[in-house]
């Protein structure tokens, strides 16, 4: 019995958030490939009946149907992480901080994510405006992460990785797809490295494995 079913497009950063979180939690799940591009199948009648917003991913588990990526991260953590590390929802300080970052991750989808769609799939949007918005968001994140480093911390919230990190990771990591390299963002680079070092980390096209962390051949 698998934990859930994911309506998935392999190049979507939002779909990857769910695949990554499930991999970090060691969960088995089913995927249904949706031809987001070039088929625009997420706007088909069948998919709109499941998700009127016409977005991906969609997560189903029994009678549960979730159409918001950040809600899915919360669902995964609350249902499949007994330690409550990944979403400290009941903590009066950390819980709201996580929610704040989930909202920030939505901004990243509309800035760095959109810039990537424009650069890669020629999406009919103002690519320059999206890139400017992405630079603004990356700089904001860089400043906050720099402060975190000065405090001796690695993660966005508290002292352990949370769904806040997972929600913000993909579109930051994928920004070079839109020509937005990470060279000018040393704190972001450290944080990306930390996420990629997590046990159970999984890749997607554009986010490569840390080969140097693989087990050496001679054990």
């Amino acid at each position, binding site marked *: 019995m698998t934990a859930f079913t994911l309506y*998935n*497009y*392999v*190049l979507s950063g939002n779909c990857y958030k769910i695949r990554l979180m499930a991999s970090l939690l060691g969960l088995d799940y089913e995927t249904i*490939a*949706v*031809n987001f*591009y*070039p*088929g625009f*199948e997420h706007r088909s009648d069948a998919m709109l009946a499941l998700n009127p917003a016409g977005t991906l991913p969609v997560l189903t588990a029994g009678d549960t149907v979730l159409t918001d990526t950040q809600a899915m991260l919360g669902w995964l953590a609350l249902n499949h992480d007994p330690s409550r590390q990944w979403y400290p929802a009941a903590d009066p300080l950390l819980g709201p901080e996580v929610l704040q970052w989930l909202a920030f991750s939505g901004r990243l989808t509309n800035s760095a994510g959109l810039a990537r769609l424009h*650069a*890669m*799939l*020629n999406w009919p949007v103002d690519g320059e405006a999206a890139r400017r918005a992405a630079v603004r968001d990356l700089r904001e994140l860089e400043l906050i992460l720099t402060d975190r480093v000065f405090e001796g911390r690695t993660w966005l919230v508290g002292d352990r990785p949370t769904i806040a990190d997972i929600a913000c990771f993909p579109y930051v990591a994928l920004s*070079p*797809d839109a*020509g937005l390299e990470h060279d000018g963002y040393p704190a972001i680079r450290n944080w990306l490295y930390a996420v990629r070092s997590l046990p159970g980390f999984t*890749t997607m*096209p*554009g986010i*490569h*494995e840390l*080969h140097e962390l*693989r087990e050496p*051949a001679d054990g």
Partner: protein
Amino acid sequence: MSLDYAKNDWYAVADIFCLKDGPRQTRLLGTDLTVTGPADTATVTDAEGNRYPAQLRFDHVWTTLGDAPRTLFEIPQGDEPGRRRVPCGVVRVRCSPLRAVENFLDIAHFPFVHTDILGSEPQTEVRPYNVEIRDETDEVWATQVKFFQPQAARSAGDGIITEYDYRVPAPTTAVLYKTCPPKPEAQDVIAIFVQPVSETECDVWPWMALYDDESTFSEMVQFQHEIFVQDRSILENQRPVKLPLDPRMEIPMRADLTSVAYRRWLKKHGAFYGALTEDA
């Protein structure tokens, strides 16, 4: 000049899907074009209203800007009954169109870029294979290329030794023929049709003709997207951006024989659009 040779080749500028919602505005060899459907009777015009020839082949609309176009190559296997033809849309890459083709011809990168799909460590050896420029058809061919692959196709279960044949019928097109997991007597066909936007930017149209009765169309497209976009970030970081044709500029290894033949063949034809040449 480099554009002269390139103008007389045919290029994919649309597929059968993308014209359904209206014309496609695009650029080919630095010229802005409008491609208007339906695909089987598509028209291609530039900003001044000049009209260019168009033909529908391999589920794509092809055009040429030249006055003396060379004949568009054939892929006869694509028409065989029972094959599923899969146009995979278009992906924009900031690299030389020639670099995109050369990357498609390379197998040595499989374990490192397409980890656990087209290759895996420690099985990284590229065994000796044959490379030739076939005079009768004027094409580059690499044959009997064998490589261990954990998941060679959507339809492949466990890892297999996959045998590839590679073919370059035009400077910006590469076709590969590979072991078809569910039908060992046949070969799957996978191609990339590279549309040179400029010398340093291209739109890549992956296309497949497969024997696969199991996978959904969406699954087959996603398999190809996953692999191609794994290459994209590597391609955008290759330097120099243009493909060097001077053999002194990059040092090839034995595994790069196909690339060496491809570069030699480009040089022989003066197909320099997207290339770095000695006199550049």
